[in-house]
Every structure is written in C-alpha cells, then in structure tokens.
C-alpha cells in the first residue's frame, strides 16, 4: 500500500516539474514575441519555444495519467504539433517575404538579395505555367 502511494507522489512530482518547465518555455517564447524587433526574428523565437513548451506540458500530463490510451492520444498530439508548427512557420515566413514585410535594419541582406533575384525568375516561370489551367 505504501509503495502505491509513493508511486502516485513520484508521478505528481515528475509531472509538475515537466509542466512548470513547459510553462516557462512558453512564457519565454511569448516575452520574445513582445520584445524582439522584427517579424522574422519573432517567428524564430516562437516556433521553437512554443512547440517545446507544448511538448513538455503534454508529456507531463501523459506521465500523470499513466494509461495506454492517454499515452497514444498525447503522442498523436505531440507528433502532429511537432510536424505542423515548423511547416506553418515556414509558410507564413515565406508569405511575409513575398508581402515585402520590412527586415530589421541590422539584418545582413547581402546573400538574400541574390536569392530574391532568383526567386523573381521562379515567380515569372510559375506564373507562365499557371495561366493555362484556370480550372483549379
């Protein structure tokens, strides 16, 4: 009986440590969201810190419940968020580049200029390719 109570206590301790660490990661990411000067630097802070915090919180919850079905659901959510958060961040940052959102004034843009020149050629090509099929 005593060992069972002890196991519950240890589960609670490990779970609360995981959850407090995850909330700390999310809090740091949100402070970065408010403080950093540029949209792209903000994206870099958010997509890493927020995803890590969410994964830690969900892992702590799975440790507390200690059941197989709960573990499977939490693993599904963690896998999904770890796959989709970088994809969403990349797509939104690419859209921001095409919308010409201004960079921070101290950003080194020398190599990025050549990339943008190549990118303009790619856009012209894709426009020519896209014009014959307006059905979609």
């Amino acid at each position, binding site marked *: 009986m005593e060992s069972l109570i002890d196991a519950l206590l240890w589960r609670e301790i490990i779970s609360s440590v995981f959850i407090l660490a995850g909330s700390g990661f999310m809090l740091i990411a949100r402070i970065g969201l408010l403080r950093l000067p540029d949209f792209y630097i903000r994206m870099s802070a958010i997509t890493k810190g927020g995803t890590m915090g969410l994964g830690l919180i969900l892992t702590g919850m799975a440790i507390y419940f200690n059941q197989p079905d709960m573990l499977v659901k939490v693993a599904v959510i963690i896998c999904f968020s770890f796959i989709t958060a970088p994809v*969403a961040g990349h797509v939104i940052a690419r859209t921001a580049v095409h919308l010409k959102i201004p960079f921070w004034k101290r950003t080194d843009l020398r190599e990025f200029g050549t990339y943008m020149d190549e990118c303009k050629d790619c856009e012209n090509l894709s426009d020519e390719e896209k014009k014959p099929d307006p059905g979609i």
Partner: protein
Amino acid sequence: MFAISLYIAIFALSICLIMVAIRFAIGPSLPDRVTSFDLFVANMIGIIAIFTELTGNEDFIDVASILSLFGFLGSISFAYYLMKSIR
C-alpha cells in the same frame, strides 16, 4: 502542493495569452496577426492539458487534439490566400 503548481502553470499560460493578445492588437503587419492567431491555439491546447490534469476528466484531451488540427488548418489557409492575393 500538486494543485498549487498546476495553478502556477495556468497563471503563466494566462500571462502568455495576454502577451499574445497585445501582439495581436499592435502587430504592425498581417503575418504578425496570423502568427498570433496560431499561438492562441497553442496556448489553449496547453491550458486544456493542464485543466484535464487538474480535474482528472480524460475527455478533454480529445478537444485538444481537434484544436491542434484546426489551428494548423487556420494558419495554412491564411498563408495560402495571402499568397493568392499577391499574384
């Protein structure tokens, strides 16, 4: 003690929600607001997970999984239609 740490975590996530709302209000461009919308969803998943642990009711975790699906769809569709509006 366990409940107190969970309350502290929920308090921290609520402060996160307030920060995201401030960025949503003052965000100088549209992609800032789209990102803030994505972060609202991530924050709510965290709050739902902690609330599930606090109450011991296992049904709420389905809400979190559905919410993670819809948050991804929201940000991707915003980015897609923004790209379409440029051309």
